């Protein structure tokens, strides 16, 4: 193990480490701690200049109540309606592409694979004008399906990379054995491979959920009103509305950030496994 385990060093060094750890964490998360404190402060603290001091009263309930009384719940709902179908769509498409590219040997295999990988790396600004145009032509501009369709298509690049590498690591003998038994390829996909892919599916689901929930660029390009914009875009109109109301902005930001954060803490193992796939040989 590197660095040397701290238990093996001098007591002084051990004590130092035990102090350093929480201290550095507080510095690292200082901006977030500030927002959390802001969100329970009363309005009067900001007008009287008490930004960083102890809250003069605890107004958490009022502040969060105001947030839930605004357009925020609608934006949250939109985010859910965008994120969940995208996750499902990506998983369906990419388990199929991943299966095809991971199991079969054919000449174009590597080139199809590279098409997905390269497309996933593209700066998405180059897609902006044509995709906006296409969405307008389909009559889906400023609708949730318009955003979902694009997200599914774009995320398929990353998901295919992920699924294909995962399937490659499975024991190929399983598939050969199934073929010898005369099981059809579709059934191999459904009954042999899919059950083994459960951890990969879970990892992808949490990752895509987070990516899409946090998307801002496409939300601004493809939607524009409270009826279809997700919470990331909503928070900016919230910002315009309550420019100096730091307590409300903070509460709103925390509410907006909560779903991916909860997802991360609940599914931590899968989340990290997904994010670090390939970081170890």
């Amino acid at each position, binding site marked *: 193990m590197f660095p040397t385990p*701290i238990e093996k060093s001098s007591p002084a060094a051990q004590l130092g480490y035990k102090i350093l750890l929480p201290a550095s964490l507080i510095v690292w998360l*200082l*901006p977030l701690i500030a927002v959390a404190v802001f969100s329970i402060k009363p309005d009067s603290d900001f007008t009287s200049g008490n930004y960083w001091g102890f809250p003069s009263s605890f107004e958490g309930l009022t502040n969060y109540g105001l947030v839930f009384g605004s357009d925020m719940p609608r934006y949250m709902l939109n985010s859910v309606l965008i994120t969940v179908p995208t996750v499902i769509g990506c998983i369906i498409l990419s388990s199929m592409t991943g299966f095809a590219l991971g199991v079969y040997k054919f000449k174009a*295999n590597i080139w199809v694979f590279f098409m997905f990988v390269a497309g996933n790396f593209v700066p998405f600004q180059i*897609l*902006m004008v044509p995709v906006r145009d296409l969405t307008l032509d389909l009559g889906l501009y400023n609708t949730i399906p318009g955003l979902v369709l694009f997200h599914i298509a774009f995320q398929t690049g990353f998901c295919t990379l992920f699924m294909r590498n995962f399937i490659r690591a499975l024991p190929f003998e399983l598939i050969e054995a199934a073929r010898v038994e005369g099981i059809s390829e579709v059934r191999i996909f459904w009954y042999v491979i899919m059950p083994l892919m459960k951890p990969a599916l879970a990892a992808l689901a949490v990752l895509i959920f987070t990516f899409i929930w946090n998307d801002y660029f496409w939300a601004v390009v493809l939607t524009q009103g409270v009826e279809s914009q997700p919470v990331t875009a909503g928070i900016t109109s919230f910002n315009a509305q309550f420019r100096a109301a730091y307590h409300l902005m903070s509460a709103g930001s925390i509410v907006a950030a909560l779903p991916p954060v909860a997802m991360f803490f609940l599914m931590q193992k899968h989340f990290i496994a997904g994010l670090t796939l390939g970081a170890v040989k």
Partner: protein
Amino acid sequence: MADTAFTSSSANQQSWMKRNKLIITPWMFLLPGILFFAVYVIIPIFQSFYYSTLDWDGLGAAEYVGMANYAELWDDDAFYVSLRNNFIWLFLYLLAIPGGLTIALLLNQKVFGIRLYKSLFFFPFVISQVVVGLVFTWFYDPTFGLLNIILGWVGLGPINVLGDEAYVTYGIIAAGLWPQTAYCMILYLTGLNAVDPEQIEAGRLDGAKRLKMLWYVVIPQLKPATFIAFVVTIIGALRSFDLISIMTNGGPFGESRVLSFYMFEVALSEYGFRMGYGAAIAVVLFLIMLVFIASFLRSMYKEEKGR
């Protein structure tokens, strides 16, 4: 299969299917994915190249203008500012890699509660960049921001980071480094987990210590993690848009623009709907990215062949 071959035409077809099932099946599975990806990603890339030769407001008739958009870019000061900032982003964003490694080394211990520490250090990556941008805007605020209070303690400041042409890009990059460092940290933590303990022992017997050990024994073993860290950081740097849009909206005086933001401004904001000009900017950004994409694919290709 031979026994069913000549019985009827439908059986004949079926046997053709059966004989070729290993060729047909993968394409059946690929079809929906390729279709989606082609319509929304591959074809639009080429369309953008085409649009960049047009003078078009997105609604009315488009006029073919050849290379005129690129000629205009050549003399556009705002374009050069954006391009310069893109390169500043690219270089400084890479600091997330050593930063992430440092935190990973700090946290790679087995003391009580370390798992919680690891997740909390990773926390900034999970939050939307929109929220990160808002938080840092307050952090930099000239009247009450924490930064200026801290600077005040050591007798410096106050500086208006986001209002000063000299600091604004660096200020935004610092905000971006926060989640990106967390990402690199988690990559390295996973990598460190898999470092071969026998090699560490061998290094120790050879008298390698601390930095020497890190440089000659540990870092070479972290190569896969480093590769991914480079890929995601470079892509993240060239895609930067959210933070700029939230923190400064390109200002002051357009000094914090990057290409991705400038193209958005030209094509979809109060500066008018100049789709062709925007597409030309996007093409330039794409070509810069292409250099990196090609080298990523090349090393992936080598690895695939090595298998």
